[in-house]
């Protein structure tokens, strides 16, 4: 059972760590809204399978030093939701 974890909390919101603690195995993490800041947070180690909404990244200027490779469009987000057997919105 693979789970898509959709996380929109900022890295210092307590639920951010709660979500990371729940990600395991083949799960996919999708960062949206404030959560995309985690890509710039050098104190964090994110799970292997992580993506972030490009629109939220661009809005916050998070396009430099290779971060854009994490960016996905809304169409890709929809595809992620269809691939997962369960979705948790944190």
């Amino acid at each position, binding site marked *: 059972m693979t789970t898509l974890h959709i996380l929109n909390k900022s890295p210092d919101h*307590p*639920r951010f760590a709660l979500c990371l*603690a729940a*990600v395991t195995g083949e*799960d996919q993490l999708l960062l949206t809204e404030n959560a995309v800041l985690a890509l710039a947070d050098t104190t964090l180690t994110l799970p292997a399978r992580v993506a972030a909404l490009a629109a939220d990244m661009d809005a916050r200027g998070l396009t430099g030093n290779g971060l854009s490779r994490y960016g996905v469009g809304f169409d890709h987000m929809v595809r992620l939701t269809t691939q997962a057997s*369960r979705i948790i919105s944190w």
Partner: protein
Amino acid sequence: MTTLIIIDQPPYGNWAGREGLDMAFSLAAFDQPVALLFTGAGVNWLRQGQQAELIAQKNVDRNLSAATVFGVDQLLADSTSLTRFGLAPVDLLAGVETVRFEPALLSSYSHVVCP
């Protein structure tokens, strides 16, 4: 097909935790299997001796301790959070089961909701 509702918001300060409890009791009222997991500051809902009337709010200890009667199958509390807030099992409302918050725990629930 059990639903797990995670309560990580503290009692009374905002409505998120109470909304989670209301969601659980509504699901239970419609015979949907539901479990509650208290974690983070949310474990403080389980502390005995709450007197919410002093801040013009309703105590939840009555409905929580009667959760199984209402049809809520499990009342779970994350052990790390309990320790963090100095809550020993004896300080908790009746019927609370201590667990560790980890992926394995979540995998047994088909829906996980975090209000």
